[in-house]
């Protein structure tokens, strides 16, 4: 039996800023994981990755990674993506800094 497909999001880093970004269902990039498109189908995931890679000149290191559905959109399933979504734990830098400025 094939293994069940785990839902995915597409993530990368912004070319100019270097920060973590997510591919949305409107073919744009957002800094917020909650705005990422959660892809539930395996074949669809590959197609969406190809679509995202059209931006390879503005965006660096595009990849698919596991996520799950949460109350406010996708949530990480692994601690690495959790840290990428927030920023480092020693300073309130990265995404958490921006959030504090809102």
């Amino acid at each position, binding site marked *: 039996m094939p293994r069940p497909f785990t839902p995915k999001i597409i993530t990368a880093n912004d070319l100019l800023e270097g920060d973590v970004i997510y591919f949305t269902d409107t073919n744009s990039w957002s800094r917020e994981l909650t705005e990422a498109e959660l892809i539930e189908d395996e074949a669809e995931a590959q197609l969406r990755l190809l679509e995202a890679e059209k931006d390879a000149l503005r965006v660096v290191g595009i990849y698919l990674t596991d996520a799950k559905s949460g109350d406010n959109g996708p949530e990480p399933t692994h601690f690495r993506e959790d840290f990428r979504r927030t920023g480092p734990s*020693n300073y309130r830098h990265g995404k958490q800094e921006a959030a504090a400025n809102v």
Partner: protein
Amino acid sequence: MYKYNDFDTAFLAERNAQFRAQVERRIDGSLTEDEFKPLRLMNGLYLQLHAYMLRVAIPYGTLNSDQMRALALLAEKWDKGYGHFTTRQNIQYNWPKLRDVPDMLDALAEVGLHAIQTSGNTIRNVTSDHFAAAAKDELTDPRPYAELIRQWSTDHPEFQFLGRKFKIAITGSSTDRAVTRAHDIGLRMVERDGVPGFEVIVGGGLGRTPLIGKVIRDYLPQADLLPYLESVLAVYNLLGRRDNKYKARIKITVLENGIDTIREMVEERFEERRRAFDGTDQLLLEEIKAHFTPPKLRGGNVETYLAAYDADPVFRSWADTNLAAHRDDNHAIVTISIKAHGQTPGDATAAQMRAMADLAERFGYNELRISHEQNVILPHVHKSDLPALHAALKDHGLATANVGLISDIIACPGMDYCALATARSIPVAQEIASRFDELKLEHDVGHLQIKISGCINACGHHHVGHIGILGLDRAGVENYQITLGGDATETAAIGTRTGPGFAYDEIVPAVERLITAYLSLRDSAEETFLQTYRRVGMDPFKAALYPEAQKKVA
């Protein structure tokens, strides 16, 4: 200190201009990331977890005040106000923007600093004893040789595309403060018939296959240094495996072929290569040496020092832990701890960098060093200046008296910054330091090195920590493995694994149990953790770490 000549300056200017054009072409889309990546890595620019990271070399760990101020400027103007000093005598900036990096490199070039060969499969920044030219036990200042190696290796056409990165460390003292046995090549100054030369060690390294280097030459005349290094690298370039990234380091070449075969091949090439050196390298060395004339140390008595030492327990505690013996009895080597309890090991703010630069100017003959232990050193301070220096350090949060103690932890950036990490290192280091500060046990425990890496690459030197901690990913959860008995000095040793790893919230209590066990096992307050471990072995520490397992056996 080495000063760039016109050639060096022009070389850097040209190199930076080239990179500026490459960045522009990446931004306007004429270069793809695949084309651009090797170019940015050649200039020390990585892409990490949350942002870019720029790695700047601090050759053999030596800086003057202006250079330190330039590092502060970069932190303030183009980063988030701080920099991270590493175990390879580099500084890393964690938040630069792609567009700004050429400006950062230009600002560095103005003071003779750069990011060349801080990445890639080349000869990396040559590291050295951070007490060079100041230590009482030193035969010869190793830095002119390090500078010679740097000039020879920079853009050396034969060694730009090695199988893997290549690291050289050099020390001029019998006490090894440069971890020479954990480098691809380690050079240790030794004397034969009163003439200093080098003991050459090859094939050491940390990473996934930690190995202690082997002596390939017990005595190499100084004049033969470059042809001999060339021969070692040429043999490595020939035999080194390129089929498997993890087996590409020279340590594997030495392991697979045996040190005797490697030695034979090196000696054979050495015969040939030596002939190609016509002595210009020795002339260059003489020229370089002239830049390393030691400062003219001032005289004067040390009364103020002795008075403060007697009167002020805070000063005394700092003096006892953070000073080392200088070759001049009226001077001291000062280690400034950038490991305040609860802070990120190795981080300094722009204000702190400036303060250290000013203090080096006022009290330290304008010289600073960065140690592989991630601290900053003022190598020459007259003892009468120590009380004033200490007071000034206090004002900047730089007077922590913990050098060589349990909170003087080496920690790699781990999952908080590093794209290769499998777990975090920094918060573990912060919590251990804070915990032992609360317990007020640190000075009682005495000399103890804890070293932490966030993955098997071992940037945090955990294999050679008395207590080594390696962060791993166990089914999506952070897990920490402990090794004991590692040693980074002239008696180098790789630590031994204790057993199963610990979850994130179990690792600090586990370290605490190790320390409690040590305190009950040591035969006197003078016996260090490492000595106790060597005397009693692993078992009592294992019992302390895994009490449940003991119960099951019983």
